[in-house]
């Protein structure tokens, strides 16, 4: 109770110190709202095509204009938030569980565990990551599940390294030795003593990779892997609009691209803010 109170106070302090962080938090709330309630608040059906109103430029009726099939781009951008967000979030949760656990085990136990996990992540890092993701989706099948999996796999080394380094410095800490004396087994020490202590750093990592995950999912859809039309998704929408830019219909690609950029931007800024929040140096 007391602790959560002081965290709130600290959060307020960090936000007031750095307005950019405040802005990022605001943006995050907007994105979250769009993801949760998007389909219920949009003015038009994102899938309904209307041949009478194709390729209309932004107007009062269609804020972001309409596309080749006369679908309202504003509605499609808002509704797409949920899908992109869900892909990114589930892949990040997946990689957090896999990479985080593998990393702390690697840092805590050392020896062979460390070597095997380290070599696995080195192998992943040896490939150009986006090409690897393409390969995984192409090989496993063109589904949303596989996009999630591919995004998780390419982020795996990042999580392993952060978790490994954090666990490694705490391996011989006094409180870990004390936990051994208290009769905790090694795996229990890992889960109940080490894990809670590296959680804050991992939260920062989550936020930073979240933006990357969104970009990756959109990128895969852009080149035609994963999500298929007519599902509203930022990457597909940019791909659909790309051909029309030359002929002057810039809005089809611009607005989903802008949404994508803002989302990535928001998570990166949020990561910096979170780092300030959990950094003990900033706590006085």
């Amino acid at each position, binding site marked *: 109770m007391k602790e959560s109170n002081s965290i709130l*106070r600290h959060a307020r302090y960090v936000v007031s110190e750095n307005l950019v962080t405040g802005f990022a938090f605001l943006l995050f709330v907007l994105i979250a709202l769009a993801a949760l309630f998007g389909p219920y608040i949009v003015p038009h059906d994102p899938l309904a095509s209307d041949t009478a109103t194709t390729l209309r430029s932004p107007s009062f009726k269609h804020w972001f204009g309409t596309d080749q099939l006369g679908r309202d781009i504003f509605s499609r951008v808002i509704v797409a938030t949920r899908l992109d967000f869900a892909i990114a979030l589930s892949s990040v949760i997946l990689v957090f569980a896999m990479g985080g656990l593998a990393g702390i085990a690697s840092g805590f136990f050392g020896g062979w565990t460390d070597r095997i996990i380290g070599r696995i992540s080195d192998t992943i890092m040896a490939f150009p990551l986006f090409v690897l993701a393409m390969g995984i989706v192409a090989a496993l099948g063109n589904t949303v599940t596989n996009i999630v999996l591919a995004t998780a796999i390419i982020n795996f080394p990042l999580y392993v390294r952060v978790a490994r380094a954090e666990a490694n410095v705490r391996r011989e*800490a*006094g409180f870990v030795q*004390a936990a051994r004396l*208290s*009769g*905790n087994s*090694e795996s229990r020490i890992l889960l109940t003593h080490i894990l809670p202590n590296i959680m804050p750093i991992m939260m920062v990592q989550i936020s930073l990779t979240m933006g990357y995950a969104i970009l990756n999912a959109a990128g895969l859809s852009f080149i035609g892997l994963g999500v298929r039309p007519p599902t509203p998704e930022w990457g597909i929408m940019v791909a659909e609009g790309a051909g029309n830019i030359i002929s002057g219909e810039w809005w089809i690609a611009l607005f989903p691209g802008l949404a994508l950029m803002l989302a990535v931007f928001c998570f990166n800024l949020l990561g910096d803010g979170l780092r300030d929040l959990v950094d003990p140096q900033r706590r*006085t």
Partner: protein
Amino acid sequence: MMARRTRKKARPRVTGDVPTSMPLLEVRDLTVEFATRRGVVRAIEHVDVAVAKGETLGIVGESGSGKSVTSYAVMRILDRAGRIIQGSVLFSGLDLITKSDADMRDLRGREMSMIFQNPRAALNPIRKIGHQIEDVLLQHAQVGNQDVGEYAIQMLDQVQIARPRERYHAYPFELSGGMCQRVVIALALACRPQLLIADEPTTGLDVTTQKAVMDLVVELTRKRDMSSILITHDLGVAAAYCNRLVVMQNGHVVETAKSQTIFSKPSHAYTRKLMRATPRPGVSLRELLPEDVRAPRPKASPARGAGAPLLTVEKLVKEYPRKRDVTLFARLFGPKPPIEQEIFRAVDGISFSIKRGESVGLVGESGCGKSTTSMMLMRLIDKSSGLIMFDGENIGEIPPRDFTRLPLRKRIQMVFQDPTDSLNPRYTAARAIADPILRLGDISGGDEVRARCEQLAQRVGLPNELLDRFPHQLSGGQKARVGIARAIALKPDLVVLDEPTAALDVSVQAVVLNLLQDLKDSLGMSYLFVSHDLNVVRLLCDRVIVMRAGQIVEEGLTEQILSEPQANYTRELLAAIPHPPV
């Protein structure tokens, strides 16, 4: 530049007298504030300090008294949150507070320099020490490019580093802590400054090293007719090396006087309290506490010192392979058969025993193997060979991994050196104390465990309302109490105390030592007290074992060893302890 540096050499040595001439450094009415999350904090308020030419001034106080902040303000190296609110700092007539940053950079190192607590952190780890000295010299244009190397070697020679020409090429990690501190001193004195500020220069060094380093500082500053400020928490060190002392408490100067005067007639209550709490010969544990809080000692349990030994150690050895770079290349093409790996014996065949209810001190300098010994006894690491018998059972044969879950685990517990490091920052005090009870204890259920925790907290003198706090919300002494409560939670027979008070202020140390004594008397535990401080060991232990380089040098009753040491090494250790003149 050089001409200006040559000062008159024959200057009368300043003795204990308070000098009458204009002081070299004069701090007047200095107030420093820090902006923190919880608002503005005044670190020091209206501090007046003066240092005469050639004088050594000691600033003494416990943690948080503002002694370091004062020196940082003088050097103008406060971090960004700190601000000098009022007051003046006059250094040979110049007001340092109005100086620009560029001017200060020029003054620092050339006219005034500083030695910090951790010598290793003060040196650049990837640069040869000779080059680091050259950097300072060239920065302040003290010596020309041609002579700078020779001058650096000369400096190393002056701080009594053996084979300076060879050591010029050494990296900091190749030198011991005491050697690193000598290099730092060489750095600080390279440009012949007029003022040297030493901030806890020997904390973390062994007593014999401490003596060598402090003797060196005093000798060099005397020879060069420099003034120095020695910041320390140790009254013994301050008394042994300073002309005058300034005692600080909570950001205020409470007393300023000559060293002898302070020790013979301390005028301020806080000074008296500090002096009383400092362990010294001929004083019992209870006498360290203020008169009004001295409780009578609980009755000693009858099991004291009787019967078969609780713990017997025979020919215990711990070996580590000395790391050698055996690359694949060397393994394939090197001489056959391959060179045998060198072996380093951290503990080299020691034997001793501890009886029930007895407390035994294990004394030695860093690297003598005392911590390795205690880790082996605790079954945290494996032994290489030898026998560890605990109450008739050969616990040395049980691998550490399995030992964790045995009922025997309950009976051997430990109190760690650093109370902060040994508490999980995410656990409340109650959760930390409950950890052993939940894993190995015979009770379960939230309420019962909580009740046990409160009982233990009461036992170690920790108020119940602090039980729900996190370690960062507790003071050092309170954290030490949590650590002790955790160690005694399962009513162990043997507790290893690994320098439990090394990180605490003297007044807190006095309280914690008394607490440990009372707990031992009332619970009938045995202690193995690992320490480098003979004065503290004297207070708490019945017997003492002196270790050096993995072997036992001397063993016997505490009084006997401290009054008539047989081994030369023990005598050396005893002689190195600085004593307040009381």
